[in-house]
């Protein structure tokens, strides 16, 4: 019986020992894994500054297990809780790290917001400055346009004035030319008239013929020789007086009587004086042409010796005359 009891004790000891060894090996593996998890956590550089309290709790729970401070029957639970503490510490560390990242991002967001606000303000200032410059440019452009318009208006006015002036000058020139032309025409007409008159006078002077009368040989000068109503002799007649002079020179030894006659128009006294003056004028002209003054006698006969009726113009013209008589 003693042997049997010893054998039972031996078998029991063996089983107890083997179970103990197996349990010890299993625990060692769990602890190694636990320790590894813990050091993975505390060595993580990202999470190093975070979850210090939770890491301390995890450390205590791990150390309690490794140092056999936990009762055998509580070890399973302690192992679970140590793992939990490590996991929880990791989560807390991650949470705190995330919070720090969030704070950084929020700070970045704030800085960006400030920068955006500043930049927007800068853009607004820039836009305002641009708008101000554009406004100034527009005002200057408007002023330049206004000045150009004024200048153009002044130029237009000046051009209009110049055009008006040119028109006036043209019209004046035209009028002047017309006046000149008219004047030229008039001068031409006058010249033609004068020429005609001269020709007529020449013809008349050349056609003057002498005739024998009781008083002697008479040459009659019509009133065409004198200026109308005057005693002065026309220049043309003066220039063409040679025939009269020749007529007298053909009788150098004889006295020459120059008688002036008028028509009946006007007073007899006036007519007498006019006839005298005309006779004197002829006498003076003859003297000027070389006739001796002593050979000549000028007498005004007035209207008393007409040769034709004074009732017609033709008759009156015939009565207005100067007779040059070569006395016998």
């Amino acid at each position, binding site marked *: 019986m003693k042997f049997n009891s010893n054998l039972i004790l031996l078998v029991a000891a063996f089983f107890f020992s083997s179970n103990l060894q197996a349990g010890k090996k299993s625990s060692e593996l769990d602890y190694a894994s636990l320790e590894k998890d813990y050091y993975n956590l505390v060595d993580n550089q990202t999470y190093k500054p975070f979850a210090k309290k939770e890491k301390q709790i995890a450390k205590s729970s791990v150390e309690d297990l490794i140092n056999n401070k936990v009762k055998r029957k509580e070890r*399973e*639970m302690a192992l*679970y*809780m140590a793992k*939990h503490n490590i*996991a*929880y510490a990791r*989560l*807390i560390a*991650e*949470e705190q790290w*995330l*919070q720090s*990242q*969030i704070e950084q*991002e*929020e700070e*970045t*967001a704030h800085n*960006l*917001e400030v*920068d*955006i606000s500043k*930049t*927007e303000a*800068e*853009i607004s200032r*820039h836009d305002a400055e641009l708008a101000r410059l554009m406004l100034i440019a527009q005002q200057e452009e408007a002023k330049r346009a206004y000045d150009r318009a004024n200048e153009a208006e002044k130029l237009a006015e000046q051009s209009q004035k110049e055009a008006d002036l040119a028109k006036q000058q043209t019209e004046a020139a035209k009028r002047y030319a017309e006046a000149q032309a008219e004047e030229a025409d008039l001068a031409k007409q006058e010249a033609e008239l004068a020429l005609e008159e001269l020709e007529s006078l020449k013809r008349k002077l050349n056609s003057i013929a002498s005739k024998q009368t009781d008083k002697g040989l008479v040459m009659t000068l019509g009133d065409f020789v004198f200026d109308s109503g005057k005693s002065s002799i026309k220049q043309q007649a003066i220039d063409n007086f040679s025939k009269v002079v020749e007529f007298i020179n053909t009788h150098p030894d004889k006295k020459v009587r120059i008688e002036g006659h008028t028509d009946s128009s006007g007073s007899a006294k006036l007519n007498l004086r006019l006839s005298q003056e005309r006779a004197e004028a002829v006498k003076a002209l003859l003297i000027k042409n070389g006739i001796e003054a002593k050979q000549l006698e000028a007498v005004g006969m007035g209207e008393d010796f007409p040769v034709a009726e004074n009732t017609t113009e033709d008759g009156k013209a015939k009565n207005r005359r100067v007779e040059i008589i070569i006395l016998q």
Partner: protein
Amino acid sequence: MNIFRHILPACIIIIVATHSYAKKEEVDEVQEVQKLLGKAYELNYVDAAPVEISFIEKKIIQAKEFKEKRKKRDFKQLITEIKADLKIVKKRYEINQLQKKLSQLKQSNIESQRVLDDLQGQLQ
């Protein structure tokens, strides 16, 4: 004999009293962890830690079994584990929220930086 006559009933009374108290406590703890699990569902913690939630559900079932089998020590250990697991789940959820917030902030900052770059480009 006097000892058995007086002490034994007293021991029986104490044992019954502590047993009924312990039973009440076990029932409360199961309800408590179930309540905590329901709250985790309400707050969508399950999205953050679906595997852990699944383990917790199994552990609650097992805890009920331990309770029925009156394995007090196992039951207590399991309840402790469930509470610890729920604490982890909650923290996972909170970390998820923080990660989302961080991601949104980063994205927002990228967009803000782009806006700032555009604005600064306008100033050039």
